[in-house]
């Protein structure tokens, strides 16, 4: 398992290089002189010269990328132009909020999604199953920012159960996590239900039934165990979507976080800030996908072997 982990980590390196190159290229692809995107309006010639030296703007692109990457790896993203402080500080302030939100939403969607999926598959075609199918359709199609606004209207304004916005206390986490969680839950429930239904029709299940093994023991000990494989595959593929949901939802709840920071940066055209946020979000997605792969490999020895043989 350790060797598998190291291998998968090593495979991330080229991905990281490619993604960071695209993000680095942003300031060169935006129309206009890159220097103008990195510096405050009205800077003195000395400041401009310092900036050119700092980013190596007079050197070839690839050398500039090297300089930039070397700084980024040590956590130096430059200074945010509008907020006038190091991007690294802003990221450090906002990142814990995003991690808390993404993590809570992920745990919520996985547990509730699997439980709902198992129940729906076990009571197939019952009113409960039909209700779950309806929820899956709604949960996977409704825009998350609209759901977030409805949550605010209902639970924060109407009932006053939770704060409308911000991240001052733990209960401010509930509505945003729930909003992201609904989409994730719908996805996990759909896959769990489909996998459970498919596996329950296999021969070994009929043998278990014939031997008189109790229904729930078959469902939980045998069918669910097998159904977890496709669920983990999808979770690994879609973990980025669940984490990416945080970008939208943070903004609606005016929660501090990488997503809110990114949207602010985009609106202000603050390119060092945008680059820093995009890179951190991309890393989060990559690590999330890695986590999904590892969970899958932990469950399925065949995957580990396939990797070991290669």
């Amino acid at each position, binding site marked *: 398992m350790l060797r598998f982990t190291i291998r998968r980590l090593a495979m991330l390196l080229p991905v990281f290089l490619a993604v960071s190159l695209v993000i680095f290229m*942003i300031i060169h692809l935006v129309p206009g002189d890159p220097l103008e995107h990195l510096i405050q309006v009205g800077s003195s010639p000395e400041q401009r010269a310092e900036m050119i030296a700092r980013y190596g703007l007079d050197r070839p692109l690839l050398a500039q990328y090297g300089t930039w990457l070397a700084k980024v790896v040590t956590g130096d993203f430059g200074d945010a132009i509008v907020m006038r402080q190091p991007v690294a500080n802003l990221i450090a302030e906002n990142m814990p909020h995003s991690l808390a939100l993404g993590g809570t939403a992920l745990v919520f969607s996985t547990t509730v999604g699997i439980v709902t999926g198992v129940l729906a598959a076990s009571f197939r075609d019952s009113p409960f199953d039909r209700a779950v199918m309806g929820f899956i359709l709604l949960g996977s199609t409704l825009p998350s920012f609209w759901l977030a606004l*409805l949550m605010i209207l209902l639970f924060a304004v109407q009932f006053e159960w939770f704060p409308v916005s911000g991240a001052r206390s733990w209960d401010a986490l509930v509505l945003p996590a729930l909003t992201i969680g609904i989409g994730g839950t719908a996805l996990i429930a759909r*896959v769990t239900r489909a996998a459970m239904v498919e596996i329950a029709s296999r021969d070994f299940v009929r043998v278990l039934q014939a031997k008189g093994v109790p229904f729930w023991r078959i469902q939980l000990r045998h069918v669910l165990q097998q159904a977890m494989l496709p669920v983990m595959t999808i979770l690994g593929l879609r973990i*980025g979507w669940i984490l990416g949901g945080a970008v939208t939802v943070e*903004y609606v709840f005016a929660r501090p976080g990488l997503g809110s920071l990114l949207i602010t940066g985009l609106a202000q055209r603050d390119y060092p800030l945008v680059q820093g946020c995009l890179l951190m979000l991309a890393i989060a997605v990559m690590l999330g*996908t890695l986590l999904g792969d590892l969970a899958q490999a932990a469950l399925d020895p065949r995957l580990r072997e396939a990797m070991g043989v290669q």
Partner: protein
Amino acid sequence: MSRPSLAARIARSPRGALCALFLAALVLCAIFAPWIAPYDYAAQKLAMANTPPSAAHWLGTDEFGRDLLSRLIQGARTSLSVSVLSIALSMMLGATLGAAAGYFGGLFDKVVTVVVDLTWSFPEILLALILIAILGPGLHSTAIAIAIAYLAQFTRLTRSQVLALQGELFVDAAVTAGARPARVLFLHLLPNAMTPVIVAGMLATGDAIVLEATLGFFGLGAQPPIPSWGGMMSSGTAQIFIAPWIIIFPGLVIATTVIAINLFGDALIEALDIRRPLRDG
């Protein structure tokens, strides 16, 4: 005996037929927006700001006293045209890339596959935001960003379709008859590979409507005074406590549209008798 037409087979499911009717009505609304809308979408009447739904303004007015229904109808034009056009663009590019990669193989196929796999694990919203960072906010950049965000999906699907068809007799027959590679690819392989791609495009249009609305909601899409469904909600958030209808109705329209597209897609899949092309497949 001839098979009943596709339309007849879709109409067999009442749900699919209902969704098709709704979508058709919506498209007509978008096309004839200026003639259907009861008011001018940009006409401000500050004395009438934030009035709840009434006989004069069926869905109420926004913070500038503009008629919400008229803005929703005009917004359908923006949101639908951006989503449909960007998915069409994405589908054409993706199908060409994927078909060529699958048919010619070799280094070109390797490069395409690597790039597709690279973008695969990233959520569309993140890809779209990277592109908006480069192109700057606006309607055109939103369309391009959506097109590129979904490119990997269509490339991947078409490539696998073409690969699956490669061993078929009709392909060998065309090659034996002396058809050049481009002719085999575009006249024989692609038409047979396109059905699932078109269905995937139809379903992706629903996702694109949500993505377009999200970008609009962030203030990165259509710029005022042009109404878009997402943009309307963006300005409505400041009014959420006094005029919740400004955000409720556009959201309801988006939700209904996307659900209708999905259910119609399901009916279409059943009528065509193919497997649902899943993103997470």
